[in-house]
């Protein structure tokens, strides 16, 4: 050993122990590269030993490393080049494998992490739609992300999404079945999910419980509504075929038996829905909506937007303005709030102000996805007497079938004739003919001058036969 180097080291208990250990190393240890000389050798050839390397006992020690250095150059080189242990190399390969795996996954998850960071940034700014869009692109979504997303969905009124997130990423340890017996969950079912009862989830537990209750009531009372709604959707019946009075009567009977405001609120919600699809009087719908807001005040998503439109139709523009402001408080970038504001201006006859808002929405339509905006802009320009502008919107919708509705198609046919554009009317009729349908008689009446532009509207709404 190099005593010259060791002597620089202060006396230390650990060091002395270590040196002592060195002397005790025996041949039985597989990895030992230095073996202690046997006692007999020390006794028998003390004079020679000083001159020879303690390992090979053949060459003289290399004294260039110090006078007391006891290894020869060859043995020293051998010790420097001592081979690496296989298990060390194996461990390093395994660890490097883990590093590769980790980096590969992180590379794949990079976009998710960025989207989540962006989502949180939008959440801080209360930009709920943008946050929802950012979170929506996350592929590696976990319960932590889901927890934030539940809040966003609830605030936006996207209860179906909130419900999906709650059932996918959370479990209820205290859940009971229909008979009141605890539901036993396997541990495997809990992987990747969070217990809704944990303190971390206290914010969304209320939502979870509320959605469960509402879902229960909805299952109980939705049958009557969906029985007709689905037929209407598939074109089996028309709104006039729905026994509106009978349905309302049945719902009233259910409401009389309902115990809680939530239950009554859900029933009122379906009454409002059926009155809406049956085109019941605006006043009736408005009253249902007001009642719903009183029964379930916290569920703004159930009534606010309906109430805004009904207030506008009822001419209560100040109420509508307050509700629009409320929508913006929850979500400053709510494009629907802008849409309703524009519609409110249109109903008040302030077409220029309405068009400014509509054009802003159209400029960002790829982002806000409000396709109805083209219809609103068209109607606004038509009511303002700007028929050419209205025709531009109608043409745009006709060419891009994604935006096209029956009403827009009727306007396209009417305006084509009015502005003397050849082929427009026929193209609209041909399009309908492919579906065995015809243009509304109102279109022909307008073209023949039997009705005026003003007569096309009833309470601000276009009425095609």
């Amino acid at each position: 050993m190099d005593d010259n180097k060791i002597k620089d080291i202060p006396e230390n208990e650990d060091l002395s122990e270590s040196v002592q250990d060195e002397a005790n190393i025996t041949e039985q240890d597989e990895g030992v590269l230095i073996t202690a000389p046997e006692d007999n050798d020390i006794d028998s050839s003390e004079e020679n030993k000083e001159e020879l390397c303690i390992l090979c006992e053949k060459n003289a020690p290399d004294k260039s490393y110090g006078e007391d250095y006891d290894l020869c150059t060859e043995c020293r080189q051998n010790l420097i080049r001592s081979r690496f242990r296989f298990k060390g190399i194996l461990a390093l390969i395994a660890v490097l494998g883990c590093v590769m795996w980790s980096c590969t996954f992180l590379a794949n998850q990079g976009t998710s992490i960025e989207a989540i960071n962006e989502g949180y940034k939008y959440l801080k700014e209360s930009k709920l739609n943008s946050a929802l869009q950012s979170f929506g692109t996350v592929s590696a979504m976990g319960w932590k992300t889901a927890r934030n997303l539940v809040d966003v969905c609830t605030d936006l009124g996207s209860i179906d999404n909130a419900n999906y997130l709650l059932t996918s990423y959370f479990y209820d340890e205290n859940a009971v079945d229909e008979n009141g017996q605890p539901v036993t969950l396997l541990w495997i079912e809990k992987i990747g999910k969070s217990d809704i009862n944990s303190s971390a989830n206290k914010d969304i537990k209320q939502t979870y419980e509320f959605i469960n209750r509402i879902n229960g009531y909805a299952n109980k009372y939705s049958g009557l509504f969906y029985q007709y709604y689905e037929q209407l959707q598939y074109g089996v019946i028309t709104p006039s075929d729905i026994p509106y009075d009978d349905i309302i009567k049945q719902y009233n009977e259910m409401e009389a038996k309902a115990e809680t405001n939530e239950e009554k609120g859900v029933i009122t919600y379906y009454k409002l829905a059926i009155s809406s699809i049956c085109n019941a009087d605006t006043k009736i719908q408005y009253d249902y909506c007001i009642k719903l807001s009183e029964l379930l005040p916290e569920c703004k998503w159930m009534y606010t937007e309906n109430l805004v439109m009904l207030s506008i139709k009822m001419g209560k523009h100040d109420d509508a303005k307050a509700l629009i402001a409320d929508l913006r408080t929850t979500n400053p970038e709510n494009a629907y709030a802008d849409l309703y504001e524009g519609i409110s201006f249109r109903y008040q006859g302030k077409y220029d102000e309405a068009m400014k808002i509509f054009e802003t929405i159209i400029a960002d339509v790829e982002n806000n996805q409000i396709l109805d905006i083209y219809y609103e802009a068209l109607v606004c320009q038509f009511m303002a007497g700007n028929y050419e502008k209205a025709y531009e919107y109608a043409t745009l919708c006709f060419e891009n079938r994604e935006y096209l509705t029956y009403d827009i198609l009727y306007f396209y046919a009417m305006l084509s004739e009015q502005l003397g554009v050849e082929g427009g009317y026929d193209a609209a009729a041909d399009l309908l003919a492919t579906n065995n349908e015809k243009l509304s008689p109102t279109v022909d009446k307008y073209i023949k001058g039997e009705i005026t532009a003003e007569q096309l509207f009833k309470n601000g709404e276009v009425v095609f036969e």
Partner: protein
Amino acid sequence: MTVFYVLSKILTFPGALTKALFEQIMCRIFKCPVEDNRYLRTDKMCGHIEHEAINSPVKSYLFCFIPGLLNFLLAFTIGLFPLVNILNLGNYSGFVVFPQEMTQTVQNPEMLEAPVRTLDLAILFFFVWVSISLLSNLFPIIKDAVIMKEQYKKLPVALKVIFYPGYIGMQIGARLEKFGLTLLILIALTAFAVIYPDLYIPFISQIAIIPSKISAFVNKIYLDITYR
């Protein structure tokens, strides 16, 4: 105390093995004879190699510092994956994907869900363990720390200032590791990290997207070369 020390090294054997291997590599680079290259043993040298004293101040410092640094970098890279998935995303799935051919042969895909989810979870916690095992083997053995302390006095003032944080860290770490305390401290820190993720997640999530950026950059270069 040796019992705790050896136990901590055995529990964290991947880190102990790589640390000892890195020490041996350093010895070879610095041309320092290795006297005993057993990596795992049942005495105070467990997780380290026995070598001649290094007589150069800088080499002595680097010998103690670099193996620990390498272990730290490996631990950080490995630990980032479970850290981001568990604490940032709360995501515990999607790491194990069976080949499409295999999934098509299974009539009910839900049959695969349980084993896949178990494997997903096992991978996450395996990575946590490997990362902790590497992190609990950052510091030199007390003998090397004592040698480094003596050699440190011979360093020029400028290097002393530069090396000071590492020097202090290694001196304290070596004494903690002597009693097997690094593992316990690390477990406590992990618990703290779990309880207060918001303290570091914004920073961590910025680092976690680096592999994705590198991947995108490499992909761009590859496409440029391929379609040039």
